[in-house]
């Protein structure tokens, strides 16, 4: 018998799911002749009040992207308010993916010795801000940032910064931050209901990211030393497979992939790998993840993993809106925009 709090939580998420944009709406937006028409389609949705407040002269992908980011953030943090106990802790941990994205943005700027503004970050409600982003923004250099990261869950950040400096690439540090996030998320899900499915899905997301990074960076012939830093933090059971991937050519990785538990992924990545198209590869890998989330939504509507599916589809909507808006502003054809949807 499920506890009423879980039933309540999942039911609320089912309700929240109806707020997401339908495929028809996204198609209509992809067909819209310009950004103003696109905004008209958004007016009756959750985005309506914010996009409606932008003066026509200030309508741009930049202004719209910040509204999408705000809505995305609100949707990711909202389930925390309706959750309690271990579910709340898990949701809090899940929402830290926004923190990870913001940390990456600040690290990139500081590593390159550039300035960064708070407006360039995805907004996080004050009550959930665990890392002191304002102080990080003010930090004079990347070394000074470590003080703010090492006191949080990213305790080994300073070591990975040294590794990053050694290879003159921020990839090892970014991979570490992401790795810690997934590690902690799995830890936070240990006492959840349906934890097997939840952990399985978190591992799937983490593994797909690792496969994408390895395949993408391999296609670009990036230094193997840098690529190997990606699998350092992964606790996936496929870790040995990933380590093997590091030594193989992308086309051979494809063969190896078809013999692994991710054989279903080959249909998604075959075309981009054969054509060496990294943009397509990135979209296909994301599509593979979000398609898995859609399958879970259909097949396990009462399982706790449904909450992960909902949250990932919130993320998919954010990415799709960014793709459509940017595509419209840059004058891409409807078909090209459709090809970018995940």
């Amino acid at each position, binding site marked *: 018998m499920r506890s009423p709090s879980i039933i309540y939580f999942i039911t609320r998420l089912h309700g929240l799911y109806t707020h997401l944009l339908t495929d028809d709406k996204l198609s209509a937006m992809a067909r819209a002749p310009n950004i103003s028409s696109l905004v008209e389609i958004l007016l009756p949705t959750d985005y309506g009040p914010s996009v409606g407040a932008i003066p026509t002269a200030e309508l741009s992908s930049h202004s719209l992207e910040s509204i999408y980011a705000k809505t995305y953030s609100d949707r990711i943090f909202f389930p925390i308010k309706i959750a309690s106990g271990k579910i709340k802790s898990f949701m809090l941990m899940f929402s830290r993916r926004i923190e990870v994205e913001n940390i990456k943005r600040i690290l990139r700027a500081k590593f390159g010795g550039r300035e960064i503004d708070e407006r360039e970050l995805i907004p996080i409600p004050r009550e959930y801000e665990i890392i002191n982003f304002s102080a990080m923004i003010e930090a004079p250099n990347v070394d000074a940032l470590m003080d703010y990261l090492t006191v949080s869950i990213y305790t080994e950040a300073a070591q990975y910064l040294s590794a990053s400096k050694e290879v003159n690439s921020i990839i090892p540090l970014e991979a570490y931050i992401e790795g810690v996030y997934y590690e902690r998320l799995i830890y936070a899900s240990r006492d959840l209901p349906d934890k097997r499915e939840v952990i399985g899905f978190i591992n799937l997301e983490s593994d797909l990211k690792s496969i994408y990074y390895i395949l993408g960076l391999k296609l670009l012939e990036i230094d193997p030393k840098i690529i190997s830093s990606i699998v350092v933090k992964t606790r996936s059971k496929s870790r040995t497979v990933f380590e093997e991937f590091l030594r193989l050519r992308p086309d051979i990785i494809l063969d190896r992939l078809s013999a692994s538990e991710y054989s279903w992924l080959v249909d998604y990545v075959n075309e981009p790998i054969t054509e060496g198209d990294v943009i397509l590869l990135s979209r296909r890998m994301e599509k593979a993840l979000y398609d898995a989330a859609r399958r879970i939504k259909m097949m396990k509507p009462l399982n706790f993993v449904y909450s992960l599916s909902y949250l990932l589809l919130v993320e998919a909507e954010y990415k799709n809106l960014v*793709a459509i808006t940017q595509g419209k502003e840059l004058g891409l054809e409807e078909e090209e925009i459709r090809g*970018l949807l995940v």
Partner: protein
Amino acid sequence: MSFVGRVSATKGTLQRVKQQYSFIKKGKEILEMKRDRLAGDINKLLPELRRRPELEKEFTKLYKELMKAIASRGITEFESAGKAVNPMETKYLEKSIMGVIQPEISIAREPNIDMILSPVIIDIAKKFYKIFNALLELSIIEAKVERIAIELMDTNRKVNALEKIVIPAYEELIRYIEDRLMEEDLEEFVRTKYIISRQAEGK
């Protein structure tokens, strides 16, 4: 152009004019050599210039790819990634070859494109950097060709002026002075002969 009548026809003048004539002829030869070398340089560089339409086509194709990449990752991620990358630095030098100032631009610091955990951005940045380098090389060649062409025109004008005007004028002048000197010699000879015959008659 004619110097005839503007100089006194003396042996000293003839010697000086001949010296000048020989100097001018040598100068002309050197300028001809320079002209041939410049023309050779231009001929060598011209095939490179034919790469521009091809590069422009490639650049347009890449720009389209960039638009797709920006749409797929969002402008914010691109801006964020851009901040991690050290901008490239170039060094501008000027080399003087046969008096032609030729620009040389070398890359003092390469941008560290393999910086961020986003294969899409690394991919597009690498492609752009490659084409940017090709365009940079091409523009250096274009600048060289332009400067060599100006110098070639200038040298050609000088060679033509020497060949068609200055040298014929000097030849005419030399001929004129030699004729005048020969006439003077003849006059002198006749005069001497006359004096000698008169003196013989007087005796």
